[in-house]
């Protein structure tokens, strides 16, 4: 194959012949921990046009990869394209997944992706968070948690603080969501062309 899958998609966005390439590409994304929303949406589109060619297993993998892309809205985007009778069959799958670590084994990078997403929401919510709460949210403890925190202190602007009674705190970098005062003030401006309307009156 002389073209990359991305090129195939951009040249043939509506070509049923590339369906097998796209299916292989989903599996490749899983094993190589890469991700292409465009290619996956293109595949879901082809499934939508020819439901008889749909593979439930591939759809499930696309959905998991989309979950891993949170907070991007990709998961929702995919759901818009999957007929109800198909998504209904997944409920069993999710039940399974919740009980075992099934997903984590099949999809490399799933845990890290969900941790990254949790950190994203935490940093929108908290200025300062107790270590125990952070541990719970990202499901890491002990030495691994120390390492995780160290890594973010070095790379993402986190800081730590010791409190005598309450133990360690993590301070997230300031953003306009956990420090609303940083939000640009939306002062009541009037555009010049509006002012010009009343200039003759004022004159």
């Amino acid at each position, binding site marked *: 194959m002389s073209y990359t899958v991305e090129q195939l998609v951009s040249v043939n*966005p*509506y*070509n*049923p012949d590339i369906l097998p390439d796209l299916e292989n590409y989903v599996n490749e994304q899983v094993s190589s921990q890469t991700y292409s*929303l465009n290619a996956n*949406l293109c595949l879901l*589109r082809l499934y*939508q*046009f*020819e*439901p008889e060619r749909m593979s439930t297993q591939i759809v499930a993998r696309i959905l998991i990869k989309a979950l891993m892309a949170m*907070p*991007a*809205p990709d998961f*929702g*985007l995919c*759901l*818009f*394209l999957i*007929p*109800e009778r198909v998504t209904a069959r997944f409920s069993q799958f999710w039940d399974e997944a919740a009980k075992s670590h099934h997903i984590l084994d099949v999809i490399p990078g799933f845990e890290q992706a969900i941790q990254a997403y949790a950190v994203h*929401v*935490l940093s*929108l*919510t*908290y*200025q*300062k*968070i*107790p270590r125990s*709460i952070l541990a*719970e*949210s990202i499901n890491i403890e002990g030495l691994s948690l120390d390492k995780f925190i160290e890594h973010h202190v070095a790379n993402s602007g986190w800081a730590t603080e010791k409190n005598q009674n*309450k133990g360690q*705190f993590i301070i997230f970098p300031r953003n306009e*969501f*956990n*420090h*609303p005062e940083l939000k640009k003030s*939306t*002062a*009541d*401006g*009037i555009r010049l062309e*509006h*002012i010009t*309307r*009343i200039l003759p*009156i004022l004159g």
Partner: protein
Amino acid sequence: MAVATSYDHEQPIPGDSAAAGYDPNYVPDSVKSFVVHMYRHIREKNVYEIHQMYETSFQSISDRFFKDAPWPSVDSVAPYVDNDHVFCLLYREMWFRHLYARLSPTLKQRIDSWDNYCNLFQVVLHGVVNMQLPNQWLWDMVDEFVYQFQSFCQYRAKMKNKTEQEIALLRQFDQAWNVYGVLNFLQALVEKSTIIQILEQEKEGLEQFTATDGYDYSGGSNVLKVLGYFSMIGLLRVHCLLGDYHTGLKCLLPIDISQQGVYTSVIGSHITTIYHYGFANLMLRRYSEAIREFNKILLYIFKTKQFHQKSPQYEQILKKNEQMYALLAISLSLCPQVQLVEETVNLQLREKYGEKMMRMQRYDEEAFALYDELFSYACPKFITPSAPSYEEPLVNYNQDAYRLQLKLFLYEVKQQQLLSGVRTFLKVYSTISIGKLSTYMEVDEPTLRTILMTYKHKTHAVDSDGKITSNADIDFYIDDDMIHVVESKPAKRYGDYFMRQIVKLEGIMTDIDRIKLEDDSRVEILISHGIRSKREGGENHRGAGIQAGMSGIQDCQGRG
């Protein structure tokens, strides 16, 4: 092309008794004159005259002779236009469009119309067209092409009442209005026209397109370029009909909707673009973007609709206008950013949906039902693009796509409702500890922390370029165990309000000045004349008029 029109006799036109007397070969003089002139104007590239005939003559002849019957068959008019192949394709395009608008097409006619579009687009794509057609007409072609596709999908999905003959036809002509075919035609027009590159180069001043409204004044043809341009909007619409909002918005990217462009040169195209752009953003939870664009177009329609009263598109304009107010009401209920809405639009919105919007704020079952009602009224006509199963029993699936989109939308609304509990508490505190709030809400602390995080997740959307925007009217942050609430009060647009009042006051003062300057007796005549003419309408407005004027003045003084 086989111009033989087989639709004439094979199937009666349903629900139309007048058609019984319809002779497809009878060509009234006005039609003769219409095609002869139209043909001449097209050959002479007289865009102005073509546009006049297309917009006005076609309508008036339709109203006079073809109110509930099709135009004469293409065969019968062909001799008047030298049997010109391209002209005949254009004529048939209008022929079918008229049929779709006034009668209900049979399956055979739907298939024939598809065939005609294929032939027409093939001619355009293979570059043998040397015409200059009005943007309005080119837009109508793309718009109608997508509309007939949508209409076909809806029709095909109603399998229950299909006759054996219809099913046989559907099987035989399974390529007609095939979704791949539709998308690939639009895509081919975009690519072959190189419109994306043209728009790119225009930014660097190397090319003129927008400045000439897409017309070619150096002897070339505008047809492929402008069809390619409008096809990007066609693609946006088709993808929205399929629920593929992300891809739809991507197709529109080459057009900068923050500025005027060829898409604003035709009102129908302007409205279709923004309606679908706004709807896609609404579904992607980018509410403020949807609000911003709905606001702009609604203001535009408010200011300009009077100029379109006689246009054949007028009804469509009004309908989309109403639908967009409904979508604006939804967006604002989920994301109360009223400051994005201009005063005029806001007034209209309150008038139409003020009461419903109050109830939608309540987060109960009734509110939920209102979201359902408004969404169902204002959403696009979603389609299932795949062919039906011809196995017995035949089932209707024309509602499937709509139900899926509605369900996902309402699921989102429901999630917002779940957060209403915490929102109610946040509204009344400026700071509250996690412990205290969890007691009030009767949940344990970890659950409350989860609810708070969910709230953050739901109220913060991530843009296509990764930028985070907050949709929340009540926001908060947590410092250790303490929740700090921030209410983002929408800044009232005093500026806008005062400007409006200043202009209004000036108008009233000018009126008063004029009355003062008038001779008393003349004022008497004026007033009595005014009263008489109003009395003829059956009411005495004198008192009311004066009162309204007074209160207008008081209003200005009081608030000023």
